[in-house]
């Protein structure tokens, strides 16, 4: 495949940020189809419009997802990208790799694809960008046989779960995000690979309320670590911060002079519940008022740690704006211990998931995310479905309208009344 002139794209070789154009050009030396990627993209830059056709259902046998079909609308000019399907590889939880594994993937992709990838897709997959239909089955064969790997999700199924790095390299992981993510991914291989849902469904797992995988914004089922007991305080380290021995927020603000650390201004006053105070040299926290927002811990990581009674809060129903407007996930299970049973399963989490699915698969409309289903039927109905005791924690505030749906059995005498009897006492 020949090289194309790319005067517009060439402009993107300038500047300090790594240039995907430069990278593509380098790759094109080995994988000439990359010249056609560049060529078609240059055309889009000129035309200010995409040159990909709509969709196209391709895949590997027996799977309903994992491949996104894509065809050029100018295949004659850019035959290298006439077919340009993506392959979603289910990434290992929290995206640690060995170079050996990565090289295997590179080799595979050199053989069967364009040589270009997304590290990673927005859902978390390792996305291999651009291959042809005939390449799909051989690629899949080698992937499963030689690389011991599998595809991720696409379509109306469980999408590839994703987690923060949590306990692997973070002091705040309140449960084992990798283990939960991996175990559920294995548990639900069928749901990932064979679309059976009204629409897509996403799991995301963050180890603490900082939510480094944006679970509350991006997942239908968000498990976010938290704790139930008291923040652990090392008073000596608190003094260390006050005296300037430790740099606040672990040094996150080192590039500007914000003045001397002021525990009142930077911690106590920013605590959203105002539940912290100094008693002489002692930092006090009224933990019953704490909403575990992480701020104080973030600012003084050497002095404060999440409590020891750890677990997670489950929030349900986040999604992007299409169609009813974006939703954050709604707090559904205030606290759950995230632990494996003897069978190596997270049985309690699984139970919550399946309660949602059983119901959503029955009542959810086609292309209706679970958050939209909840919006449609109302949170009270959803909580009933979930067999969760409704608590004030489920809402930011109680309803302000008085439009309560009473059930017949809650009202003395029921709903049936005899209007003639009524009229005897209350004439019209």
């Amino acid at each position: 495949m020949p090289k194309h002139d790319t005067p517009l794209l060439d402009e993107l070789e300038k500047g300090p940020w790594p240039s995907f154009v430069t990278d593509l050009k380098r790759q094109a030396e080995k994988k000439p189809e990359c010249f056609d990627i560049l060529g078609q993209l240059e055309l889009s830059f000129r035309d200010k419009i995409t040159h990909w056709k709509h969709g196209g259902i391709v895949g590997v046998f027996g799977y309903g997802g994992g491949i996104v079909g894509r065809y050029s609308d100018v295949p004659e000019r850019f035959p290298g990208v006439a077919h340009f399907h993506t392959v979603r590889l289910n990434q290992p939880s929290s995206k640690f790799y060995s170079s050996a594994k990565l090289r295997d993937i590179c080799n595979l992709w050199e053989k069967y694809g364009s040589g270009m990838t997304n590290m990673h897709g927005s859902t978390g997959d390792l996305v291999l960008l651009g291959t042809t239909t005939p390449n799909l089955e051989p690629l899949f064969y080698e992937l499963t046989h030689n690389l011991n790997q599998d595809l991720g999700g696409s379509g109306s199924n469980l999408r590839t779960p994703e987690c923060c790095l949590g306990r692997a390299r973070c002091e705040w992981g309140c449960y084992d995000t990798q283990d939960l993510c991996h175990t559920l991914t294995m548990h639900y291989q069928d749901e990932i690979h064979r679309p059976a849902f009204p629409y897509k469904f996403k799991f995301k797992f963050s180890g603490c309320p900082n939510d480094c995988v944006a679970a509350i914004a991006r997942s239908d089922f968000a498990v976010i670590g938290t704790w139930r007991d008291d923040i652990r305080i090392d008073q000596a380290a608190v003094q260390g911060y006050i005296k300037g021995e430790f740099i606040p927020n672990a040094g996150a603000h080192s590039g500007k002079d914000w003045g001397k650390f002021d525990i009142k201004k930077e911690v106590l006053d920013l605590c959203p519940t105002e539940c912290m105070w100094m008693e002489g040299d002692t930092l006090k926290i009224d933990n019953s008022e704490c909403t575990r927002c992480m701020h104080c811990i973030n600012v003084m990581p050497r002095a404060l740690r999440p409590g020891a009674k750890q677990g997670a809060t489950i929030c349900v129903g986040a999604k992007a704006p299409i169609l009813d407007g974006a939703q954050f996930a709604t707090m559904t299970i205030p606290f759950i211990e995230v632990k494996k049973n003897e069978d190596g399963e997270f049985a309690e989490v699984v139970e919550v998931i399946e309660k949602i699915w059983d119901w959503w698969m029955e009542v959810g409309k086609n292309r209706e995310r679970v958050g939209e289903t909840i919006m449609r039927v109302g949170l009270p109905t959803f909580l009933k479905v979930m067999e969760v005791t409704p608590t004030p924690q489920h809402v930011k505030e109680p309803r302000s309208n008085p439009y309560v749906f009473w059930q017949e059995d809650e009202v003395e005498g029921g709903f049936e009344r005899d209007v003639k009897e009524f009229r005897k006492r209350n004439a019209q």
Partner: protein
Amino acid sequence: MGYDPENPMADRITDIGPPHYEQFFPPVVKKNYGKWLYHEILQPGVLMHKGESGDECYTVRVGCARLISIELIREICDIADAHCDGFVRWTTRNNVEFMVDAKAKVQPLLDELKGRGNKFPVGGTGASVSNCVHTQGWIHCHTPATDASGVVKAVMDELFDYFTSHKLPAQVRVALACCLNMCGAVHASDIAILGVHRKPPMIDHDAITGLCELPLAISSCPLGAVKPATVKNSAGEDIKSVKVNADRCMFCGNCYTMCPAMPLADPDGDGIAILVGGKVSNSRSMPMFSKLVIPFLPNTPPRWPETVAAVKNILETYAKDARKYERVGEWAARIGWEKFFEKTGIPFTIKSVDDYRLAYDTWRTTTQFKFTSHIK
């Protein structure tokens, strides 16, 4: 000359509007109009306004039932004549205000008021529970789910001490409306007592034809629970009427407003809901809606003890816990509604979870919450 029924249009006067307010201003008000400097509350119920001129206007505010007789109004006039140059006013919360122009005139006025038994309790200013505004109830309206004056009397008896004192963290506005029409500012009161129906409308098929326009009845229902139907009336005739899908009914009563043949009032079904945390003023925080915290208390005339106790409990829990200047809604927002329920001991029910039009915005979409006794 007078009204001549034979000739009703003779000499007719219309559209003259209300009398001009100025003629009713006490002299000190007229003189200092727009030129007041500051005020002070000398004691609960007694305000002093200072004018740029140095003039002072002393106001004595007295609690008043809203449902009052002309006899009582005449008594008020007597007092106004004796002490206030014959002027008096009503506040926006149905209290009566007597104004005098010198401090020396205050005590005689207070004595006079006191001398008349408990007709004219002085108070309602500052950090108090002022008069409970209310609506008609069983004394006049056709749609109430509870009484108004009766409940209010029972509640104000119990809160009396808070009317005549300044011991709350801030002003607390208590209001009652006898049905969801909410004639008043119940939807934005610190503590609101709201009459609620809980049974779907009956349909008086014998009467509906004459009384109602069926399309209006059908379209009146915000949830589409009213549908056209052909039924038999008691005479056995097929008539065009409506039916109600009870599962979709939220007991708002709008169908009854539009169609008298669809009554929903019921001795057992009707009762009272309590809402809290509304406010109107723009002071510190923005105006807030009242929020439903007790979905139902029974109608228990003559003194509605459950309702009285519920209101008092909320008020006193707030009084103990809130900061100076903090309105009920500001307090609840600061401590979190989970703490509100815990501290007041009000059981939280699913009925407080919104499922109406803008419901999503009230759901908790964060991991931030406090652990309370609600979480096992």
